[in-house]
């Protein structure tokens, strides 16, 4: 009986010590800081080596990392957001290199890299990489839109839209968009409609960048003038 009581006391004491040790050791996940690591193609070689026969998993991990980076960037002050965007770009590049068929990568490039991080040229480059791998015209069309609307590079935009319209699933919008660039007649209305259409399939928490862009278009002077011209 005495032995059992002693054992019980010893166990309770040890449990208390364990809990106390854990509470003061302060080992917890701290928010990782962003860093401005420049992208290098050599990073892909390392990821290919560890992924071995499972490059798809490496791409999935990159996407999970992107969610994490985005969540952290939302908590970071405005001045240090740039540090996170560099990492976001790197993870997207890794994801695309590991699994170039993965549509989530291109969707996040559009939603986060372009409209949250404002890295338009990088987004266009990454979206254009989808061409040999996807049958879908979607990423190329988005790249064309960004090139036209944000980079104001109509030559590139037309080239991308033209390539998009050659895809098997090319929607009417791809053909129409290419021709409207040629006519230089597309304006705010088309841009806003296009961006609003892009919100479909995008989880709500990642829509903010595109919504902000729509809002800024709606309130811009040039768009107001265009809308007034239409009304007249």
């Amino acid at each position: 009986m005495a032995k059992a009581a002693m054992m019980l006391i010893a166990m309770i004491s040890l449990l208390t010590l364990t809990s106390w040790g854990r509470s003061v050791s302060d080992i917890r996940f701290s928010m990782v800081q962003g860093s401005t690591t420049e992208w290098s193609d050599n990073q892909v070689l390392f990821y290919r080596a560890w992924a071995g026969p499972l490059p798809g998993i490496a791409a999935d991990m990159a996407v999970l990392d992107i969610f994490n980076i985005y969540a952290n960037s939302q908590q970071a002050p405005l001045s240090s957001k740039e540090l996170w965007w560099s990492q976001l770009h790197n993870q997207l590049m890794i994801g695309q290199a590991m699994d170039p068929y993965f549509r989530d990568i291109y969707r996040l490039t559009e939603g986060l890299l372009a409209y949250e991080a404002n890295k338009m040229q990088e987004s266009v480059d990454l979206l254009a990489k989808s061409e040999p791998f996807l049958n879908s015209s979607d990423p190329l069309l988005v790249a064309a839109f960004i090139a036209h609307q944000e980079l104001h590079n109509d030559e590139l935009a037309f080239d991308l839209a033209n390539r998009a319209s050659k895809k098997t699933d090319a929607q009417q919008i791809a053909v129409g968009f290419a021709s409207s660039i040629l006519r230089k007649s597309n304006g705010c209305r088309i841009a806003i409609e296009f961006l609003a259409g892009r919100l479909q399939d995008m989880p709500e928490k990642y829509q903010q960048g595109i919504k902000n862009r729509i809002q800024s278009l709606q309130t811009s002077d040039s768009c107001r003038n265009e809308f007034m011209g239409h009304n007249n």
Partner: protein
Amino acid sequence: MTKFYFLTLFTLKEIYSQRIYQILTGMLIVIPWLMLIPTSLFMLDIGKVFIDLLFLCLHGWALVYIFFIASPLLARDIEQGSCHIFLTLPMTRTQYYWSRFAGITSGFIPLLIVFLASSTLAFAFAESIWGSYIQAGANTSFIYGTLLILLPYIALTAVLFMIASSATGLPEITVFLFLIWLLCWTIPPVLGALQETEVQNSTPDVIVLVIKAVHQLLPDLSSSEISLGLAHNYPLQSLQVIGYCTHHLAYALLAMLLAITIFKRRDLS
């Protein structure tokens, strides 16, 4: 032939009686369902992510089986001299080794059946939740991929027999098998990197030659194109699949023949 069947069946029963094997079988029922949790985090290619995760599980359980079930079983035979029980019967070393190989390889089958059955049900459930985000025929691609991805592990099992034919015990078998597995895992991507001009220029020719030679000696575990293609439901070319299957089965037989040659000359006393 009776002796062969007897020892194969005995090996299978021996494996099945191990608690770790039973636990592994039980876990394979649950794991595909647990994989639905991380899958739900993704947006468009949900079916692809689910297949990726299931392939990851497949690699995981195949390795657990080889390292923690097959290796100790074979090592026990040598360390504790259990092989003498069989070899004292009118059974040759060749028969003993082939039977053990057949038994250990057959041990994959119950695990495979459980894994595929549970995954198929999980797929059906996933399709009912995510519908169009899972491509039609994704489950068939997954089953096809599973069967293909398992082939290198049969070759790796043959390598295990080759190592065991001259090894003194479990630590030696485990360390060498792990090294070989690690090389098999990393060499194909390294060779892929060597295709790039920049890497090619900065790597000495001797190293390239050594890497290529080692790659030729080891089984090719690089099923990356298969797992990537099938996860996206892209069809594989018949010739490539035939070549892939031939390579692994021929490698397994070759490794076993070599293992038997070494084992026959071994002094077991």
